[in-house]
């Protein structure tokens, strides 16, 4: 087994421990510190077999302060938001919500440049921020052009089937209150940026 050298962050850095940081950035009450490492989450996960570390293992690594390894993990990006882990967890840890937190931290700290998933999310919200509604055709084309041009053909036939049944549109719908929404989202992002600068973990 590979030797892991772990520094103990609470003596090295006076800042928040990684565990507390992750917990604070999760909406509601995460109960992360209550994990008893039983593996119910990893066992229940539909894509658990594909993850490099199961959620349980991630939580242990978070406790050990292994920031790099945690934020590099592919596990949050394999999360399909099925919430099995969350309802089955005997300690009521908000596993799924914690996965979202780890995604945000990984993106913010630049751990995800090679990943497709964050880009998908970015593309998705790009349309939302532009039109106020999602736009499936644009999303699929733009995302797949960037990531897997080879698969475009397959997706193409699928898109054709969808067009034939009037299930895809060529133009996105734009909401009327786009200006207001834009202002709201800009404000939210500004608050987030401030929090980043001032270390307001709870807002991130």
């Amino acid at each position, binding site marked *: 087994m590979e030797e892991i050298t772990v520094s103990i962050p609470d003596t090295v850095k006076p800042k928040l421990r990684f565990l507390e940081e992750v917990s604070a950035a999760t909406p509601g009450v995460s109960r992360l510190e209550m994990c*008893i*490492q*039983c*593996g*119910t*989450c*990893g*066992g*229940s*996960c539909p894509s*658990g*077999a594909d993850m490099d*570390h*199961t959620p*349980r*293992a991630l939580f242990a690594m978070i406790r050990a302060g292994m920031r790099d390894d945690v934020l590099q993990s592919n596990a949050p990006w394999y999360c399909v938001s099925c919430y*099995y882990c969350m*309802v*089955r967890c*005997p*300690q*009521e840890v908000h596993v799924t919500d914690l996965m979202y937190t780890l995604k945000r931290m990984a993106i913010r700290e630049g751990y995800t440049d090679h990943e497709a998933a964050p880009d998908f999310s970015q593309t998705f919200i790009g349309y939302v921020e532009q039109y106020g509604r999602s736009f499936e055709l644009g999303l699929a084309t733009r995302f797949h052009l960037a990531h897997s041009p080879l698969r475009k053909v397959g997706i193409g036939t699928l898109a054709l089937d969808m067009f034939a049944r009037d299930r895809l549109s060529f133009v996105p719908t734009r909401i009327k209150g786009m200006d207001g929404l834009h202002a709201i989202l800009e404000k939210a992002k500004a608050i987030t940026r401030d929090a980043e600068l001032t270390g307001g973990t709870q807002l991130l």
Partner: protein
Amino acid sequence: MSDELNLENAEERIGVYICHCGTNIAGTVDVAEVREWAEKRLKSRGVVLARDYKFMCSSLGQELIEKDITENRLTRVVVAACSPHLHENTFRTACKRAGLNPYLCELVSIREQVSWVHTDKHAATDKAKAVLSGGVERVRHHQPLEPLRVPIHPATLVVGGGIAGIQTALEIADAGRRVYLVEREPSIGGHMSQFDKTFPTLDCSACILTPKMVSAGMHPNITLMTWSEVTKVDGYVGNFAVTIKQKARCVKTDLCTGCGICQEKCPKKVIDEVYEAGLGYRKAVYTPFPQAVPKFPVIDKPNCTYFQKGTCKACEKFCPTNAIDFNQQDELITVEVGNIVLATGYDLFDARRIPHYGYGRLANVFTSLEFERLTNAAGPTNGNIVLRDGKTTPKVVGIVHCVGSRDRNYNNYCSAICCMQSLKFAHLVKERTGATVYNFYIDMRTAAKAYDEFYQRVLEEGTLFVRGRVAEVTDAARLPGEEGKLIIQVEDTLAGKQRRIPVDMVVLSAGLQSRHDSKEVAKLFGISCSADAWFIEKHPKLDPVSTMTDGVFIAGCCTGPKDIPNSVSQGAAAAARVLTYIDRGEITLEPVRASINEMKCSGCRICNNLCPFNAILFHADRMVSEVNAALCQGCGTCVAACPAGAISGTGFSNEQIMSQIEGLLLLNLNGAREKELAYA
């Protein structure tokens, strides 16, 4: 009484003692300042001396008080130290030794409620002063009291005929005292009678239990009342009157020889949900198992063809001694006892509540109790471990720990016995079928004599252990080799990988739960339940078989999950407590009781219905109510409710509490001393 009202002139001589408790108190509270303040400010309140001392509870500290009582003629004592729950008795006894009535001593807490919970020295010192002054005001209204004495009836009621109840009954009966042993089912024996082997010794459960059951059944001092339930409890410690409903057996026990012909001839087969855990059948007239004590069967009326349809009577026709009596009626029997021991046991967690484990949906998922019956030589399969089809021997068996335990969605606690029980199952499967066995666990808990050794043995036998809580059990095959199997999906947390393990049989080690009706039972006997509905001990560590209700004891699993050795120990411990009471012949009770001043009582009867212990009697002839001091537990609800102020409580009178409030408010927190000055 007039003395009580004329406080200002009363010549009380109060001694105040402030404990340092090493640095426990003195580290946060300025003890010297409190002493000086008490000396000066509380002089007008009757304080003649104040002292502080390193450890008041030490023998030297106690001697200091004793000396002052004799030399300085103290009439009241206030000790500011730790919680009264710790040392109230210590200081009362010290007063008593010096000839002062022990109830004229008041202990106020400046450790648990001041020095240990506050950090600001100034605020803590001020609060200590306030608390002390509250104690001084209160002690002025204390009255000399004598403890109550109550005689103890020498008979005992034991409720529940499992191993804990049997043990209790035998211990008391062997000591020559009468015991009424009441059991809801037709036979005593409890859950232990359902097991095949007991861990870690693998003794045959029946072999060690049956002799005890027989002794209990034949003991001249034990009155066995099976197929019976307690319906009413009157009275109080030493003098309970308990009403027991003896359900109609429809079998004349004086004629029945227990030959079993009626069971043989009865045409009605019923799934036995109790003794066979739903895995086997019994007849409508039955004894739950061959070694049942007593040996007499009962007729299960809701399932009996005669009772439901009016014809059949096969049992009656074939009974060689004419012992069947369809006309028997339920009987109410009242017994008088001095003490009661509850040993009502546990229910198994209902595994159907976790649908993703498949119990009830997937045929070859079994509960632990079902599995006990499968392995039992007297069980439905004669001890053959087979699948639900009744014939196929499993090749791979998965045993799931912590089903319904250690889970905030169900029961938060550890059920204590499941690890060992699962190890036992693993051993039995290996021994009898040679099958591959998996144990799925979160933590192995084998902390008792020879338990971990048993774990070692099962490891050595080749049982496979997977550290991970099972996520789900499914029959939806996904991979080759899974078809027709049950698949256990789990994260092997030590390997850090998700695994799918195909098995033929799944055994769910379901947790232990309080009896479904334990809350009603607790209410019936006047004791309390925890949030999980286990009965609450008087003290979880130091008094585990007593309850807050004098004369009612608890033993075995009704107080929480435990194994057989612990249940037996508790049964014996409860018996010892009961025998101590009986031997002493009487019991002394804290004189914290309510009493009614007849002159003031208007006879409105408001208090009558408030009392949960029925301690208040109404005398219709004189139109006044009266409190039975032995029944009264001293809660004081009636005192607070009496519109005429006719009820007063010793130890918690209106005067005592009102004065304490005044004392507590002597000092304000924000530095405003007007109040104190005005008072002084």
